[in-house]
């Protein structure tokens, strides 16, 4: 693994499987009476959030705290950023405070990359969502949820999602979740199909490792997992579809549509959900919807990422042989 986690496209298959396997062990900590590990004692993780977020920030905070790291939360509101401080000066301040890792969410695509490559800070940079670019830990937790549901927590160890058919539905244009998922799921061997109104399909999608379809009903019967994306009204500066009712009739998931999916298939949603828009309450509350599970899995995945980036003297490289404990390590 590299020193930073900026894009899901940077991850090799070995890296991705290592993160998922590590998360599987981290998930077991949640079942213990003491949900804490001493591993990152004395390390400082800064949550640098320039954009609103509840679940991602809480999730990173919980992950860092379960690993005993010190957590500093920084949100743009109520900070010097609202007085006009630049990203560079904010970064230099964090560096002076000795941040070992910076988890950044920013409204500008590319901000985490800038932070990681500028030399402003020495620590690891973890992208927690930048503009409409990427959200790699969300893709990892989605893949983790799929592997657990479709293959099983134990049977899935060491494996990808080979041959699985994943359908991602909705506002792909504005979705960093979709972008990260397409790259990661393709790396893990899954077949990804995007389903969206033509106006919400990004330019250049033909270069992505996925297919594009416009009719949800045709794709559903062949899907192992269906991921519904939120319609991001806050990023919409033009009319992308005539009415919400029309959108939800053609691209929303309701009980009738869900019945067309194979028996084993799951419904996923990265949250926050717009009930009645892209997903009906009936589907959201059914046992096939993994939205709440995804949140729990998010903590495990972020623990795994923080451990692999900060747990040693350098980030973990591609998996060593299974029995890496040598004789002198007794």
């Amino acid at each position: 693994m590299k020193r930073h986690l900026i894009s899901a496209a940077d991850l090799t298959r070995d890296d991705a499987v290592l993160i998922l396997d590590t998360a599987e062990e981290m998930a077991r900590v949640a079942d213990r009476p003491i949900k804490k590990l001493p591993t990152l004692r004395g390390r400082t993780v800064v949550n640098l959030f320039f954009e609103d977020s509840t679940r991602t920030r809480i999730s990173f905070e919980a992950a860092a705290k379960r690993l005993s790291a010190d957590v500093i939360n920084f949100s743009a509101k109520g900070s010097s950023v609202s007085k006009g401080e630049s990203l560079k000066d904010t970064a230099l301040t964090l560096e002076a405070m000795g941040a070992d890792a910076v988890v950044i969410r920013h409204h500008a695509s590319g901000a985490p990359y800038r932070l990681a490559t500028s030399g402003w800070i020495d620590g690891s940079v973890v992208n927690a969502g930048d503009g409409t670019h990427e959200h790699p830990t969300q893709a990892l937790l989605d893949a983790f949820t799929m592997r657990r549901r479709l293959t099983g927590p134990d049977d899935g160890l060491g494996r990808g999602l080979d041959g699985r058919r994943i359908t991602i539905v909705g506002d792909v244009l504005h979705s960093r979740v979709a972008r990260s998922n397409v790259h990661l799921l393709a790396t893990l061997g899954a077949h990804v199909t995007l389903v969206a109104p033509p106006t919400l399909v990004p330019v250049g999608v033909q270069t992505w490792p996925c297919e594009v379809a416009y009719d949800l009903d045709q794709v559903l019967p062949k899907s192992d997992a269906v991921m519904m994306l939120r319609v991001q009204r806050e990023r919409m500066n033009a009319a992308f579809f005539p009415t919400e009712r029309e959108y939800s009739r053609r691209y929303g998931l309701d009980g009738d549509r869900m019945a067309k999916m194979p028996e084993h298939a799951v419904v996923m949603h990265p949250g926050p959900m717009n009930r009645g828009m892209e997903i009906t309450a009936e589907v959201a509350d059914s046992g096939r919807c993994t939205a709440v599970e995804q949140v729990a899995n998010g903590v495990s995945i972020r623990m795994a990422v923080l451990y692999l980036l900060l747990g040693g003297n350098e980030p973990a490289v591609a998996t060593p042989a299974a029995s890496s404990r040598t004789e002198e390590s007794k």
Partner: protein
Amino acid sequence: MDAQQHPDAAARPVLEAPDIARVLTRIAHEIVERAKGADDVVLLGIPTRGVFLARRLADKLEAITGRGIPVGSLDITMYRDDLRMRPARTLARTEIPGDGVDGRLVVLVDDVLFSGRTIRAALDALGDIGRPRAVQLAVLVDRGHRELPIRADYVGKNLPTSLRETVKVQLAEEDGRDTVLLGLREPAETAPVREQ
């Protein structure tokens, strides 16, 4: 690695398969004797090879007592004191038997006891999982050179070694055969950074 070939020509076996089997049988009897029947014993192996040894011991204890003995594994990676000396390590499985460890006699099982740091980490890990009545330690080989005040309750073989020597345990489950090899470090490694 080809299991039939010694990784380094100087390595010589100090325990062979029948010796290992006999030693484990003796340790199983010692556990029954000291625990007065092994009623509340839980065996926890430390990955990788300690887990296989724990399972073998559990089989022998079952043969002696006629009762099922809970056996699990305890990964100590996250509790090591030398994490920052090497790249982040791959985690192994921690599997605590269903009834937990509270109030039980936990016997930790590992292949080689050396500096004692692994066991220190295992005790810390155990403390986060529950509160055993008592904790004991069983090892296949004790090679000395302790760096912490830790000793084993059950020892398969005491093997006085120098720091220039290496002790390698191979078990059928992992390496295709049972043996304990005593070898010499490569000259380049004569002054290794001592780890756990």
